């Protein structure tokens, strides 16, 4: 193997090992990583995925950090590039650059309660956290997942929730609109959050989802006593280069691809109030 560092702007060719349909328009691709993947990734980081001849988009890594050789990405088809990616089949080739960005501050949470709040597809960048916590449960105090989504048929990773519960994660799921047969909670995700679920004095909270969901979740968790410095959010902006050169993902004085996507609420709360950002 060459000792020359990989060019971060050069996609590595990888093949699709497995394709799982999660729900309408949402697919999880498991990719056969190149040797570079052995270096691993931090939960919360993202890759730039290149659909040959179509384009490139940033997608969070949603796989198990204990298995870095396999790259896992959950992708929603919302545009040309993501649509092309969701149509890939096992054996097809695509390009990968990354991993880029900052990860969730899991080392800060070691020994403390870990509060994970996800909305919709925002569960994908938090899946590596949950897998890491499930695989090394004694590393944390209580681990609680608050997950809100639109309807029962949009519950992501529905087949894994029981395994996470069995691993000692306190899993709470709610939907905005129930359907016949749904036995779970109905209401917004913030209604799940209760002071008795965690020790606010030491808990670390990780939030991912649409910004409006993170705004209200952060407000609720802050109201329950978790300081802004220990509430972390994954921001989404228009990442292009992934390495802080192009400036497309500028978020106030920060670049999301380089300085984020994970920020503390303390860092971004003032920026989230500015409409133009």
């Amino acid at each position, binding site marked *: 193997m060459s000792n020359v560092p990989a060019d971060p702007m050069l996609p590595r060719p990888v093949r699709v090992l497995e394709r799982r349909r999660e729900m309408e328009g949402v697919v999880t691709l498991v990719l056969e990583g190149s040797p570079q993947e052995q270096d691993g990734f931090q939960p919360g980081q993202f890759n730039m995925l290149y659909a040959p001849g179509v384009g490139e*988009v940033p997608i969070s890594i949603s796989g198990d950090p204990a298995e870095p050789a396999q790259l896992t990405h959950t992708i929603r088809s919302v545009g040309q590039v993501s649509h092309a990616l969701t149509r890939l089949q096992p054996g097809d080739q695509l390009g990968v650059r990354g991993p880029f960005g900052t990860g969730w501050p899991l080392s800060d949470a070691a020994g403390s309660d870990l509060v994970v709040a996800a909305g919709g597809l925002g569960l994908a960048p938090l899946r590596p956290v949950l897998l890491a916590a499930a695989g090394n449960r004694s590393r944390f105090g209580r681990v609680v997942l608050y997950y*809100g989504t639109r309807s029962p048929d949009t519950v992501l990773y529905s087949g894994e929730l029981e395994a996470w519960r069995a691993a000692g994660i306190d899993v709470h799921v709610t939907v905005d609109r129930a359907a016949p047969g749904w036995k779970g909670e109905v209401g917004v995700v913030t209604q799940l959050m209760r002071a008795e679920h965690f020790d606010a004095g030491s808990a670390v909270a990780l939030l991912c989802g649409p910004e409006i969901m993170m705004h209200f979740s952060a407000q609720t968790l802050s109201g329950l006593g978790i300081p802004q410095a220990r509430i972390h959010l994954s921001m989404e902006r228009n990442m292009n280069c992934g390495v802080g050169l192009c400036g497309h993902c500028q978020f106030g004085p920060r670049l999301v691809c380089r300085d984020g996507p994970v920020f503390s609420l303390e860092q971004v709360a003032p920026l989230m109030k500015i409409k133009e950002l």
Partner: protein
Amino acid sequence: MNRITPTMLAEQSFFHGMEEAHLQSIADCSRLEQYDAGSLLLHQGEEADAAHLLLEGSVALELTVPGREPLVVETLAAGELVGASWLLPPARVHFDVRARNDVISLRIATDCLRRAMEQDSSLGYVFCRRFMAVVVRRLQATRLRLMDLYGHPGLFLPEERR
């Protein structure tokens, strides 16, 4: 069931910080009730003569429409006050309130409470302020649900970048 005391009420966050005299008036209108999973605490369409403060368990607010399975509008857990229709006429229950699991609730007879609030306007003011906080919180939660909170966050991106 046991007699309700002001001390018992004061342990519930809804009543935190209320004056002893006010708590006594509410306690005089209250009793503990148990409901098995699946049973109804309140019936849609009936006279709204009670509110329930959930002490254990959780409930589902269901809307019954002929020819369809009941539609769950919202679920509420321990600590929540259930039953908002009693305060204003025509005082009819709007939803079935069904126990999702075994429930223990503090049932407040609202005729009794309304009389106490009319006799002691300070109790009426204090209770209505807290009651309004519950209503506002539910209204905000409903607005959030109307916003489609979990819609795709990146729709502001240009088409070619999605």
